[in-house]
Each structure stands twice: as C-alpha cells, then as structure tokens.
C-alpha cells in the first residue's frame, strides 16, 4: 500500500497538471503566469507544512535543507520553459512528448547505473523496451 501510494499521487496530480497546462492563458507573458504557478505552489507547501507532522517551526525546518531543493527549483523552470519551446518550434504534441519520455527513460537508466549503482534485471529491460514501443504506438 505505502509502496504504491506515491505512484497514485504522481499519476493523479500529473493528470490535473496536464488539464491545467492545456488551459493556461496565452494573451499575457508566459513567465508572469509561471510566477503565479510558483506562488500558488509556495502557498500550498506552507499550508501542507502546517497540516502535516513537523517537529520545529517552519523557519527552523527550512534551515535544515541541502542543495537538492534549489536544483529542483531551477529544473522545474527549465522543464516548463522547455515544453513551451518544444511546441513553439513545431513539434507535434504526441511526437514531442514521446521522444522526450523515451530519451528520459534511457538517461535515467544511465544515471541509475553510473551514480546509484542500480542494476537493471532482464525483466526490467524488457519492460522499458515494451513501454517505449507502446508509447510509439499510443502516439502514432
């Protein structure tokens, strides 16, 4: 149950994300809208901090951080900007996202093996190949 709960969360909120991304206004500056996105996300995180179990105050807890949230913050903006550019230079929605997903799966295998000493089983390699071919047919 606890092993699959994060998967359910990622999938459910990713779906809301796609619906909202489709509804973003196009008449004003993209980055002005993205500022609204992150201010909402900051507020939601503060609310969730107080709603969940915490030992110290918000300030004392955010002081115990490391490098990762800052890299995550920069990556999120880079990703969103990348997707906007992808469609502006003429990629079809289906082909563009498929190419990115397949390349990402390959990069993640390399990163997992090189930096985290993860070893893929034959079954997992089969799974990734099936998913890549499946994604191709889904978006044809």
């Amino acid at each position: 149950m606890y092993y699959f709960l994060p998967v359910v969360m990622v999938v459910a909120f990713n779906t809301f994300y796609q619906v909202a991304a489709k509804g973003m206004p196009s008449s004003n500056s993209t980055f002005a809208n993205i500022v609204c996105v992150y201010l909402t996300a900051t507020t939601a995180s503060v609310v969730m901090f107080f709603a969940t179990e915490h030992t110290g105050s918000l300030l004392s807890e955010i002081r115990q951080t490391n490098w990762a949230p800052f890299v995550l913050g920069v990556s999120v903006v880079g990703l969103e900007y990348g997707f906007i550019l992808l469609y502006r230079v003429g990629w079809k929605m289906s082909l563009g996202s498929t190419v990115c997903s397949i390349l990402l799966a390959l990069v993640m295998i390399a990163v997992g093996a090189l930096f985290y000493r993860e070893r893929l089983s034959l079954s997992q390699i089969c799974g990734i190949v099936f998913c890549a071919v499946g994604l191709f047919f889904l978006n044809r």
Partner: protein
Amino acid sequence: MEKFYYYAPVILIVVFEASYQIAAKGMPSANNIFANLVWVYLTSAVLSVALFFATNKSGGSLMSEMSGTNWAPFVLGTSIVGFEFGFVMLYRVGWEMSVGSTFCNMLVALLLIAIGALVYKDQITFSKLLGVALCAGGLFFLNR
C-alpha cells in the same frame, strides 16, 4: 542551424528532467518534506521573475501581466505540489531511479488516453489499443 533549434527544446527537457529526478532523490529526509518544497518553489518563483524581466518585450509591468491570468496557473501550482511530494515519497519508499519515473509516466499516458476518450471523445484506434497493451505489458515487466 535550423535543426539545432528543433532539437534544442528536447535537450533542454531531458537535461532538466534528469536533474529534477536526481534532485528529487537527493532531497533531505531529516526534516519535513513541505519545508523543502517551500525552497523549491521560492527558487522557481525568483527564477521566473528574473526570466520575465529578461524576456519582457511588450514593456508591461509584472503586476499588470500577472493580473491577466485565469484559473489554470492556480490548479497547475497545486498539482505541482501534489506530484512533487509524490516523487519525493516515491524515492523515500524505495523505488529505483531507473524504474520509478518510467512506471509513473506510463500510467499517466494510459490515464490520459482514457480521459481523452471519455471526456474529450478522442477516437480509440487499433494503434492506440496496441500501445496500451504494450505499455501494460511493460509495466508488468518493470515491476516483476
């Protein structure tokens, strides 16, 4: 040169998505997850403000451009917190980096096909059914 501009966004997405997954796995586990997410979004908000000024050609102020928004950025902001919390938890409960993100992306693709068919009346073709079957098979093998 034209080819470079066509592939530049792909490189941008793959590089930042890879750094995203590495950072999600490297998030500290001793403190509250949402305290870390506050840093994530403050970093993103500051960077977005900087990029707004770097790309602002119309000359409108940030406030006036922000007031021209609709419901979507607020749903997007809430969704991002939900799935980022999900990704941080994914690695905390032990999913491997090489399998976890692929597994979730496949499920999202399948769910979006179902929503497309049910809500937006998108056509289900033979090619899509074959794709669903292959992805489902892939998910089975990924988790064996």
